C-alpha cells in the first residue's frame, strides 16, 4: 500500500514532466513558426551567407561558430542531405560565436567571403579545426598555415577582418541569437521550426518533415 502510494506519486510526477515538456515544445514550435512567418528577417538577414537554390522551399538556418567541433561534425551531414535533395534546400549560415575569441574566426571567414572564397574557407576551417582550435585552445597563427589551401590571400584577410562592417554582422547575428534563444551551437531552425532534441537523426527527421510538407508527391 505504502509502496503503491510512493509509486503513484512518482508516476504522476513523471507524467506531468513529460506532458509539460511536450506541451512546451509544441508551443515553442508554434511560436517560432509564427516568428518565421511574421519576422523572417530574424532567421535570414541580407548579410547572411547562403548555399543552395534560390527557389528552395526548405530553409535550414544554422547558428554556428567556426571553432565549434559539433558544427564541424554536422557540416558534411547537412551537405549530404542537401545533395540528396537537389534544389529543394537552402542553407543559411548565421553566427553564434559564444566562446571568447571565437568571433575572430568569424571575422576571418567573412574576410574570405570578400574574396569570394566563403565556402572553401569554411570547409578548410572545419577540416583543420583540430589544428587551430583543439579543445577551444585557439591558435590563429596555425590557421594561417592551412588557410592558403582555400585559395585565399592571407595578407588581404588580415586587413579585411577588421572591417567594421564585419563587426556589425556579428553584432546583428548575436542579437538574433538572443531573440531566438539559441544557447548552443550548432542551433538549427528548419523553416523556422527549432530542432528540439539535438542529434543527427532528429535533424534529418525535421528536414524530411519539411520536405514532405513543401514537396508533396
Amino acid at each position, binding site marked *: 500500500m505504502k509502496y503503491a502510494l*510512493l509509486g503513484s506519486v512518482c508516476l504522476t510526477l513523471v507524467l506531468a514532466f513529460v506532458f509539460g*515538456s511536450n506541451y512546451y515544445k509544441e508551443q515553442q514550435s508554434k511560436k517560432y513558426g509564427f516568428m518565421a512567418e511574421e519576422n523572417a528577417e530574424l532567421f535570414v538577414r541580407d548579410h547572411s551567407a547562403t548555399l543552395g537554390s534560390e527557389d528552395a522551399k526548405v530553409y535550414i538556418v544554422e547558428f554556428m561558430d567556426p571553432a565549434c567541433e559539433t558544427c564541424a561534425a554536422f557540416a558534411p551531414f547537412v551537405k549530404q542531405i542537401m545533395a540528396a535533395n537537389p534544389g529543394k534546400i537552402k542553407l543559411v549560415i548565421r553566427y553564434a560565436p559564444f566562446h571568447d575569441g571565437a568571433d575572430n574566426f568569424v571575422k576571418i571567414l567573412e574576410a574570405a567571403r570578400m574574396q569570394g572564397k566563403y565556402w572553401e574557407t569554411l570547409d578548410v576551417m572545419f577540416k583543420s579545426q583540430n589544428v587551430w582550435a583543439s579543445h577551444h585552445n585557439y591558435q590563429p597563427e596555425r590557421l594561417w598555415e592551412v588557410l592558403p589551401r582555400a585559395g585565399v590571400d592571407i595578407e588581404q584577410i588580415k586587413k579585411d577582418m577588421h572591417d567594421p562592417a564585419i563587426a556589425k554582422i556579428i553584432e546583428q547575428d548575436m542579437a538574433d541569437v538572443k531573440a531566438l534563444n539559441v544557447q548552443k551551437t550548432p542551433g538549427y531552425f528548419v523553416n523556422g521550426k527549432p530542432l528540439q532534441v539535438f542529434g543527427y537523426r532528429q535533424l534529418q527527421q525535421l528536414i524530411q518533415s519539411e520536405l514532405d510538407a513543401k514537396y508533396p508527391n
Partner: protein
Amino acid sequence: MSQSDQATKTNWNLLFLCWILVSVSTTISIFFSSVLEYEPCVLCWYQRICLFPLILIFAAGLFPAFDKSVIKFALPLSIAGGLTALYHSLLYAGFIPENIQPCSTGVSCTEKYFELFGFVSIPMLSFLAFSTLITLLIILKRRTSR
C-alpha cells in the same frame, strides 16, 4: 488502533509529505533546466546538491516503516539548502550587492528567468520549499523525541 500506532502513522504521513515536497521541487527544478533550458547558476547548483539526495533519504526513512533517524540526516541538508536559498533570494532582490557574489562567469545568479505572479522568483520558490521542509522536520523531531 492504539495511540502509538496512530502517532507512527501521522509521523509516516508527515515524512511522506516531505518526500512529496522534495520530489515535486526536483521535478520542477529539472523541468526548468532541461526543458525550459534555464541554465542553473552556481548558487542554484548548491541548492540542488542539498535538494536532490533528500528524495532518496526520505524514501529510505519511509520504508519498510517510519524511521526517525531520517531526521538526523535530512535536517542538515535542508538547513544548508535553506541558507543558500536565503542568500540567493537576498542577492536576487538586491539586498546584497551583486559585486560580492561568487558567480562571475557563466550564468549570473541574478539572471531573471521566471517570476510567478510577477514577484515569486526561482530562489524564492527554493527558499519556500526548504523552509517548509525545515518546519516539517522540526515538527517531526519534536514528535519523535517525546
